[in-house]
């Protein structure tokens, strides 16, 4: 390997060499096959998409390689369904049946337990989804992975999410950064373990902005109402609509601002051996990505949805950087997971 690449500090480590024309046949045939198979092809479509995207993503001197298959993702999904269906059936039917029989207390308790199980499993799913992706990602003949099952991470995810979002929403940045650290510290590439110790510094301000949006929106509503209210129902509707859109618009913008800062900090703190990662997408970049995706899908009457994964990956790689020195890696000895992203997919959070 050319060692000069890593010697001088920052280097343009990641490049994305795909072109949309090149990807077009894959996008269109994936979309068409997914539609005519009532969605069953989507696992194979995802595998094919990743094979293309990974093979057009270059790190330093060579491209990545994706070796995951549609079949393993399909099977992983089926297994996850077997786990989730009993819980979902209880939530949909069991609780109702018990309530109708007058066992309200027990039904409520079991319903809460079911949601707790789902929250726990979602944490496990996020861990395993990342573990799976790393285990199928190769570079220089070496892959990543994890020696952990994610069951312990699930426990941590469970209580930190509850404390962060439900009890005191102000602790959301704390739970997000801690969970990010725990997730990545359990991952490795080759024989090196990822390290991450990101803190909430610089994130609290942005998160408080998000929390303040409903208050700001309410203030705007009061001012608008005072200025415009005249008892006319039409006018009332307009004021309500403006307030509604203001609150949600502000929250979305502030949310993007927070998320952009979070990912910059979180990826910026990630290290593998002597390689440090960077991510420089700011709020405007994210906003442009989202609006671009929406415009693409609407402008093509939905067909453009086949390109959203491509755009997201391109965005991610474009803003991802690395610096430091690359040491020789030895092959990963981690267990090769067979569950793919089944659980994560079952939760419908299967991002790229």
């Amino acid at each position, binding site marked *: *390997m050319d*060692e000069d690449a890593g010697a001088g500090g920052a280097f343009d480590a990641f490049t994305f060499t795909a072109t949309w024309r090149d990807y077009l046949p894959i996008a269109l*045939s994936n979309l*068409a*096959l997914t*539609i*005519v*198979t*009532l*969605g*069953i*092809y*989507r696992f*194979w479509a995802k*595998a*094919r998409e990743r094979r293309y995207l990974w*093979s057009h993503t270059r790190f330093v*001197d*060579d491209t990545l*390689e994706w070796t995951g*298959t*549609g079949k393993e993702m399909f099977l992983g*999904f089926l297994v996850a*369904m077997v786990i*989730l*269906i009993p819980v*979902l*059936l209880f*939530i*949909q*039917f069991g609780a*109702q*049946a018990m*309530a*109708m*029989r*007058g*066992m*309200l207390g027990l039904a409520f308790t079991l319903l809460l337990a079911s949601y707790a199980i789902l929250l726990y499993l979602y944490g496990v799913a996020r861990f395993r989804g990342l573990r799976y992706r790393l285990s199928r990602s*190769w*570079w*220089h*003949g*070496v*892959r990543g992975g994890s020696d952990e099952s994610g069951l312990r991470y699930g426990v941590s995810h469970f209580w930190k999410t509850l404390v962060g979002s439900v009890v005191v929403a102000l602790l959301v940045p704390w739970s997000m950064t801690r969970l990010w650290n725990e997730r990545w510290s359990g991952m490795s590439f*080759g024989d090196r373990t990822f390290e991450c110790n990101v803190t909430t510094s610089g994130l609290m301000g942005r998160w408080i902005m998000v929390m303040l949006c409903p208050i700001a929106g309410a203030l705007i509503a009061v001012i608008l109402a005072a200025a415009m209210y005249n008892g006319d129902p039409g006018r009332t509707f307009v004021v309500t609509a403006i307030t509604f859109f203001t609150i949600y618009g502000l929250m979305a913008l502030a949310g993007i601002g927070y998320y952009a800062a979070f990912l910059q900090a979180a990826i910026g703190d990630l290290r593998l051996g002597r390689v440090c990662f960077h991510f420089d997408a700011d709020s405007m970049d994210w906003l442009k990505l989202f609006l671009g995706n929406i415009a693409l899908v609407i402008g093509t009457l939905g067909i453009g949805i086949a390109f959203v994964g491509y755009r997201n990956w391109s965005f991610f790689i474009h803003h991802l950087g690395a610096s430091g020195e690359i*040491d*020789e*890696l*030895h*092959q990963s000895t981690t267990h090769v997971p067979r569950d793919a992203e089944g659980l994560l997919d*079952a939760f*419908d959070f299967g991002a790229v």
Partner: protein
Amino acid sequence: MPSTSAQSDRPEPPALTGWLYDGVTSDRRAVTVAIDGDMLRIVDGEGAVDTVGFGDLVPLGDHARIVFGRVGREGWRLRLDPLPAEIAARLPRQERHGGILDRFPIVLVLIVAALASVVGLVALMQGAAFAARLVPMSWEVALGDALVGDLGGSACNAPAGRAALDRLVARLALDTPVKVRIVDLDIENAVAMPGRQIIVFRDLLTNARSPDEIAGVIGHEAGHVANRDVMTGLLRSFGLSVLIGGVDGGAMTASLLASRYSRAAEAAADDYAIHALDAARVTPAATAAFFDRLAKSEGGDAFATRAASYFASHPLSADRRRAFLASAREAGRYTPALDAPDWRDLRAICGK
């Protein structure tokens, strides 16, 4: 990491050059390769020799940038640059969509898959009605008991009202034994549940103008029971959710509680009700008027919201009203479904 060069002083005439990852370390080694019959002889910069049979080489990536993997050696990757024509000629066909799909033209695959999906959906919709009749009634009763049970405290059981309801059901002399209960919820609706159960919600009873309307509604729901429509609906929604991949619990519940039957199933249930009313000498005009009232109230008053729940599960049409009206014979033939004291008792069944 040692810097390597392709210098080799071995006298091997048609030497091909390339690089190799051995799958053990991330070290990228420049190699020279000689073709020796069915074997590749690979020599690295330090003179180490390895031989690989053609049969063990797995071409990966697209043909423009082919890389070879090796059977049984994960991460082993060999690239020849340029790829000699004699090897290119031996490559298997490029994989595109994966597996069996590549053996046929994509358009043919799309058409066949689309047809198969349509046939599958039609078979499911038609087959569910057939399959529902094969489900033993004892299973359906068990399912109904599991789902609804004894309704706990929400069933209305005032003894006089219960006796009146029993008399009303007995009067209809249905050929299918049904279990009719009134549930104390302010919903203007009635549903057939699995296991020959019919539930009439309180508001339907209190808003009815005569016992004849209730007789018509019970007759209609009994039609669904007799035709096994409840089981058909369950099987359909279950089959659909399995087919589309993913359990939409919400849709399943909805299909159970607000069972949307096909138009044909509604017409058949109406037919059943008309015959039951006729045999019991209860006027069908009341049921027609009841439908009429629901239809007219669609203007947006408070009644409409309550009526909406009935519309959602029992789509009305002028044809259906007409069918009830058309079945009416001379007025002298009919007597009220319940006498005045019974009707009063029935309306007071929930103790209100």
